[in-house]
């Protein structure tokens, strides 16, 4: 990747790649194979570009690249710092796997409008990468809106009245939030005349000219703006959005979109307000309380769900608030845990979603109560699911363990024992709602004969010694099984080698910038 693009142009090329891919996809809409190879090629190139930046950032500090002047004191500029790279690496690496998976999923379900699907997907990635790399709030806002708008057709993909109304809900929450985000940006700009991210915060000079109350209100504007983080009570778009095709739910509603929300909150807390100001304004406590409330309530919702994807949605809400609570503790270890959890939760949750999608696409089942005996019919899928579920809970040797460990240490570090308790209760509840799935799949008995809806209408003899291996029935299914196996394996690798893709080093570096040390 050297040679053609110098170091300083890499942020730009990372942003341009998805755009180019998107238009290549549009142009080749009549040739599915070509179209999907563009997606795959683009995702691989994007990942290479993004990950090629991490050694440089680790060695020499942030890569800055200014494109043009947007507004006085505000440039359209990228600033690739360690934290941004964590998010960018996560999104881009998972895009490769989800692209593979999409091919399998979309083709086996014979979905309509696949060109639109891949086009919007590439644009959504553009939004996510842009958010990760942008150097100020306005640039971030640009990509934030791109992300919202490009995912709307994906949510409404099914085009049923239900899907369209879910899409409208999605737009209403996220663009409505965008309006508050804009107010926050405007106020920040009026108060301090800049919106650049800085590891020590930029708003502290404003305290004095502006009252505490103003800054607190502005913070809540930002928080409402990041409705993508799905904290309660602005969460309800996420379960509705589960009507989207599963790869969309997997990459966007477990990683790109929702993590963009959480990423934004961390940017606001650490890079706009700064740790000291957050403490002075008492906002850490407020954020932590919101997040704690969300964790408990989302867990309770999740327990009652029979639809697997909706259950996963509530699990996502819960885990997102786990990240928020970790940030709100404002201690180095907890913030490190939060940043790590962005990546680790991404890998684990995507595994779960991919499994859910594979189950639906291959066996035609959506409700947890129908899953009896699937453990035998789809062993790889269900093993991966098991790994993901235990990762949510935070059991070693899975990635979730590392991030949760950091957060727990952070809670002790900051002496917030109440929130420590809530974190632990949350983790225990995680087990509770995953139990029915695991019990049903591995210990339940599939009824004697059953019509399986995938693509083939035929009677399948099940629950005898030779259970039919549904997963390997058609070659196209491999496109689904392999990615989910890979993410499951990564969920384990991240625990043993947390520094895969230099994630751990990057997080350490980011935390060092913010706090001056772990």
């Amino acid at each position, binding site marked *: 990747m050297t040679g053609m693009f110098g170091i300083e142009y890499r942020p730009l090329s990372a942003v341009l790649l998805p755009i180019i891919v998107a238009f290549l996809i549009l142009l080749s809409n009549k040739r599915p194979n070509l179209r999907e190879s563009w997606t795959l090629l683009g995702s691989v190139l994007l990942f290479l570009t993004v990950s090629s930046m991490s050694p440089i950032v680790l060695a020499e500090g942030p890569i800055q690249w200014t494109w043009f002047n947007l507004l006085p004191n505000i440039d359209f500029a990228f600033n690739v710092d360690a934290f941004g790279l964590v998010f960018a690496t996560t999104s881009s690496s998972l895009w490769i796997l989800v692209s593979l998976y999409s091919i399998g999923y979309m083709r086996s379900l014979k979905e*309509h*409008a696949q060109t639109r699907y891949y086009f919007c997907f590439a644009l959504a990635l553009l939004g996510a990468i842009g958010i990760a790399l942008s150097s100020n709030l306005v640039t971030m806002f640009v990509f934030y809106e791109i992300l919202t708008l490009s995912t709307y057709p994906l949510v*409404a993909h099914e*085009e049923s009245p239900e899907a369209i109304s879910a899409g409208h809900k999605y*737009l209403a929450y996220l663009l409505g939030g965008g*309006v508050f985000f804009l107010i926050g940006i*405007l106020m920040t700009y009026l108060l301090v005349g800049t919106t650049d991210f800085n590891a020590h915060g930029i708003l502290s000079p404003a305290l004095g000219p502006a009252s505490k109350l103003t800054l607190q209100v502005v913070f809540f504007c930002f928080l409402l703006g990041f409705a993508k983080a799905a904290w309660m009570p602005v969460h309800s778009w996420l379960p509705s959005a589960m009507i989207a095709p599963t790869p969309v739910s997997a990459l966007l509603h477990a990683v790109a979109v929702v993590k963009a929300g959480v990423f934004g909150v961390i940017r606001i807390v650490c890079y706009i307000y700064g740790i000291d100001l957050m403490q002075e304004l008492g906002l850490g406590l407020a954020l932590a309380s919101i997040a704690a409330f969300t964790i408990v309530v989302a867990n309770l919702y999740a327990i009652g769900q029979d639809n697997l994807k909706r259950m996963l949605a509530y699990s996502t809400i819960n885990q997102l608030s786990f990240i928020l609570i970790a940030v709100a503790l404002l201690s180095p270890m907890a913030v490190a845990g939060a940043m790590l959890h962005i990546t680790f939760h991404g890998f684990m949750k995507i595994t779960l979603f991919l499994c859910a999608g594979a189950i639906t696409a291959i066996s035609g089942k959506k409700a947890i109560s129908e899953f009896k005996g699937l453990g035998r019919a789809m062993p790889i899928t269900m093993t991966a699911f098991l790994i993901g579920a235990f990762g949510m809970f935070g059991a070693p040797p899975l990635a979730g363990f590392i991030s949760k460990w950091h957060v727990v240490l952070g809670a002790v570090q900051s002496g917030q024992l109440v929130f420590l308790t809530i974190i632990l209760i949350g983790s225990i509840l995680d087990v509770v709602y995953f139990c029915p799935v695991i019990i049903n799949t591995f210990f339940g008995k599939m009824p004697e004969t059953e019509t399986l809806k995938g693509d083939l209408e035929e009677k399948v003899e099940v629950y005898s010694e030779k259970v039919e291996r549904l997963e390997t029935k058609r070659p196209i299914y491999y496109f689904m099984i392999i990615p989910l196996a890979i993410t499951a394996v990564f969920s384990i690798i991240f625990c043993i080698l947390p520094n895969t893709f230099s994630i751990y080093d990057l997080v350490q570096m980011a935390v060092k910038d913010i706090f001056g040390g772990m």
Partner: protein
Amino acid sequence: MNPGQNDIIILMVVAPLFASIIVPIVGWRAKKLCYSLTILAVLISLFSSLITAKTVMNHGPVQYYLGGWKPPWGIEFYIDHLNAFIAVVVTFISFLGVIFSKTNVENDLPNKEGAFYSLFLLLITGLLGIVLTGDMFNLFVFLEVASLSSYALIAMGEKGAMYASFRYLLIGTVGASWYMLGVGYLYIVTGSLNMANLSELLPALYQSKTILVGFAFILFGVGIKMALFPLHAWLPDAYTYAPSAVSAMVAPLMTKVMIYVVIRVIFTVFQPEFTVDMIQATSILSWFGVLAILFGGIMALSQTDFKRMLCYIIVGEIGYIVGGVGIANATALKGAIFHILNDALMMVCLFFVAGMVMYRKKGHRISDFKGIFREMPFAAIIFTVGALAVIGVPPTGGFFSKWYLLLGGIEAKHWGFVVALLISTLINVALFARVFDKGLYVHGHGSDHSSESTDHSSGTLVQKTPLSMWIPAVIVILAILLAGIFNQAILKNIVQFAVPSGL
């Protein structure tokens, strides 16, 4: 400044004026020539406006004395940064409008080429005259030139256009008469009609009631012409039934030019100390702006016709600009002036889409937009960009003017305006989501998974939308994006100086 540059100014108005006389004569024999002659004339206008703008940017304001008579006796064209900017907007949009008109005229108005283009050119002449002139009464004359030609152009439209145009004519004439009346009052006490001269003479007379009456009449007259809520009633009908090419040009320009007149009157002819501080006309205006924004948005939501929806969006957009003018601080005014450009661009863009859909589907109801993303992907892309600009999504220009308007609103602590802007943003989302859904989702009920075949029905149909329609549309969406990306260049070089001193 050398005299050559001065002559360029008058060329801007004279080129379309002469062409409007030649075109019908030529049209007698060679209909084809009308179109190219019109384009040529407007192109000359466009170039001269660009050169004038360049001169103004480099050397400051320029003048041209008609017939060599110097003011205060003669009529002068006085061009500073503000009207140089507006003149470029007018000529640019007209240029695109003329290119776009080709198919529309050929199909819907056969054998009327001569008349149509003659009126079209007169309209452009009138609009440019309003923008350039430095004389209050001359402005009235140009205003009537523009209005009369627009009445006639609108009347050429589909069924219902006649009556709409007639109503517009009655209301418009009353508005123009009031403007003239207001000018008369100013003339009684000052004895002058020249804007620069008036602004020197008036401050001594600010206590006079005559001045106040004159000011009020001018504002009401212009308010009718620019369809400021609650004086907007004529607009939706007139622009809905007009031919596509006409509404694509009149709708963005007429109202914007009238807003220019308001800015001129409030901040140049009268000084801010009178309009802002003494009688607080601006603060009243800003609240009318707020009402216009909310009313326009709500009415737009209840429309089933795309063009009519756009008309109500225009009512709302006028509210944006008037509100920005009413807030009367430098930031908001910068936003308002910049929004004149952006709004003109995005409205022309959306009316182009309406024209394309009208051309293909013979209707402009929202239901006619069903499936346009497949059948007319180009139109769909253009629609999307235009819609994003109206909503104010960066990096389109709409975002940046909204940014300045909001910033100005917060600075002035005019919360009503700020809230109205934000609400209208959300309303716009809802408006366009409706059209977008119609255009994009054709499968319905999720049952019709008719696989890949539906994916590829585009392609050959793209060519069916004629070149003369989509070339201007593509230029417009590029302009919308460039206006956003290079907003600083535009603001720093020209708009910034267009903001009247004393704010």
